[in-house]
């Protein structure tokens, strides 16, 4: 029983684990606490931890000032839409790379990743001009497209590494049975790759949810997601900590809850082929 752990060791690790976890989580906890303070209390020194006048006024203010639901829905549509669209485009590509690799497969993959290295801010004007002419400014479709393209390399790569772990024989067997390529991918490959696809999906929803350059610069009133909601509370003239904290809490909460609930799925497929 080499793996048996004494209670004492377990207690020590419990202590260290909780301490470290608490420290890392603290800034978020602090934000949430601040969201229940008045603006005056939020900047008080010495800082007040739990024993202050708890108030919901910031949440009331934030709700009366902006349409949270609209921004929330835009965030959901854009991040989910871009990820799903990305998966539809990426699954065939990843299949091809994993099961019919050529000499250039790796180059193609690295080239795809390198498209992410062009600094977004350097191409803002070209994209803005293209979007203006295509009538895509401030539309969910336009933003969904941009985020799909921004995240596609990561999606392809994650899927490729996951697919490579799947034995090719099974697919071949299906092919022998006369399954068409589409059927092979939809009915044989996809079910086997569910964990990989699930974690790709989750990771990319998170990345799209937090994307704050394109979502801020290509939208105005209609398609603005939660990043724009936050930007309307940060750094006005005057105190804003409590209100910004409330807005941030509202913006982070959905994705945090999603992340927490799907933690296992997220982790299971997050191997990038790192597990053999």
């Amino acid at each position, binding site marked *: 029983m080499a793996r048996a752990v004494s209670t004492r060791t377990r207690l020590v690790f419990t202590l260290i684990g909780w301490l470290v976890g608490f420290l890392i989580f603290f800034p978020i906890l602090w934000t949430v606490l601040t969201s229940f303070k008045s603006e*005056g209390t939020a900047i008080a020194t010495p800082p007040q931890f739990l024993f202050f006048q708890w108030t919901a006024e910031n949440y009331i203010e934030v709700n009366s000032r902006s349409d949270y639901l609209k921004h929330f829905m835009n965030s959901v549509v854009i991040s989910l839409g871009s990820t799903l669209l990305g998966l539809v485009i990426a699954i065939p590509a990843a299949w091809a790379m994993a099961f019919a690799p050529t000499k250039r497969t790796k180059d193609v993959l690295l080239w795809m990743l390198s498209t992410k290295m062009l600094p977004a801010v350097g191409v803002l004007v070209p994209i803005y001009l293209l979007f203006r002419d295509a009538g895509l400014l401030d539309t969910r479709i336009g933003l969904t497209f941009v985020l799909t393209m921004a995240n596609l390399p990561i999606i392809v790569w994650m899927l490729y590494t996951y697919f490579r772990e799947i034995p090719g024989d099974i697919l071949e067997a299906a092919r022998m049975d006369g399954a068409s390529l589409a059927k092979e991918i939809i009915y044989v490959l996809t079910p086997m790759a569910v964990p990989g696809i699930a974690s790709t999906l989750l990771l990319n929803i998170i990345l799209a949810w937090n994307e704050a350059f394109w979502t801020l610069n290509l939208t105005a009133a*209609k398609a603005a997601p939660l990043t724009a909601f936050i*930007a*309307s509370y940060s*750094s*006005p003239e*005057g*105190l804003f900590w409590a209100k910004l904290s409330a807005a941030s809490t509202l913006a982070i909460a959905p994705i945090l809850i999603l992340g927490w609930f799907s933690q296992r799925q997220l982790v299971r497929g997050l191997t990038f082929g790192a597990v053999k």
Partner: protein
Amino acid sequence: MRAKLLALMTCSAMTIAATAQAETLTIATVNNGDMIRMQKLAGAFTEQHPDIELEWVTLEENVLRQRVTTDIATKGGQYDIMTIGTYEVPIWAGQEWLVPLDFEADYDVDDLLPAIRAGLSVDETLYAAPFYGESSFVMYRKDLFEEAGLEMPEAPTWDFIGEAARKITDKDNEVYGICLRGKAGWGENMAFLSAMANSFGARWFDMEWKPQFDQPEWKDALQFYIDLMNDAGPPGASSNGFNENLALFQTGKCGMWIDATVAASFVSNPDESQVADDVGFALAPDKGLGKRGNWLWAWSLAIPAGSQKTEAAKTFIAWATSKAYSELVAEEEGWANVPPGTRTSLYENPSYQEAAPFAELTLKSIQAADPTSPTVEEVPYVGVQFVAIPEFQGIGTAVGQQFSAALAGQASVDQALSNAQALTEREMQKAGYPK
């Protein structure tokens, strides 16, 4: 049953008709308190004008500026009304990007404060209507001054400010004589420093557009600022902007603070400020050269030239910047919350004078600033705490970085100035000056 259905149908038909007629104005604005209030009170406008609907895009200043500038310059057409400042108006109007504003007689355009109106006009034509205006002045703690046996004159000199700040400073008890902006940025430390430098007789450019950081006036101004902040400023000053200093002042850490006049209503509001009862105000300091170190800014509403909804947009702007709007705010939220700094009539109003103890000094500060002649000597540019040329945001920020390095003690004053001179010369050469 049928009658009901019929009623419902006519009803919905009417709504459709109504919405079909309604024009939607998309308004881009800053997330400052006065604009938030305008958004809240806009129901009164849509009631009067059922054919106009309003859609708001409220953003923090920097993001807003990026967005509206990109949009107007590429003719993106996403906004019908834009909130812009005195920096943008002369540049944009020069490009014919803005619709000239002419209002009905009852708008009383002559009631606008002359300094503000001048800042928003090009060749006597008004291109943006001021929503609120501000200058800068000294806010100080009467209790600390009394303790130290000092008395703040209404129009202090820099020498007095320096002396008082050092006297009040009590670092052990976290009381710092003076809090000033230090975070790099054209709208951050450079807004303060450019205005301060004006009172020292310094200027950004001479009449040939040659940068002036190699002149003794700049050296005097910057040296004074650095020494003062080292002796009497708070730690971390090189990353403090308006909000950081506001928080410091409100929690009783600063003896004095020289910043925007709008801060007066925050620091004297007992709900937010621990020192609300002890705040006094004075004009921005001078050096006896005839100019004070205060700036001028007005957040204003303008209509981009491409807009299809010019008439509706004008109607809204006339409403939001009218005397009637001031009265509406006064009625709903009290006179102290009326947007300041735009109209003479407001400062003549006894109820306002009573509700806002800082009103008179705000007015005097605004009147003391002249965007067309900001400093002692002649300059080729418009603007008090900025230079209204497109290149200024970048240059101002880069110079601001140099000065914040001097404040953080990582460069000497001479180094910072010679770097500033070199980089400004470079950028101006790149931009093709002198034109």
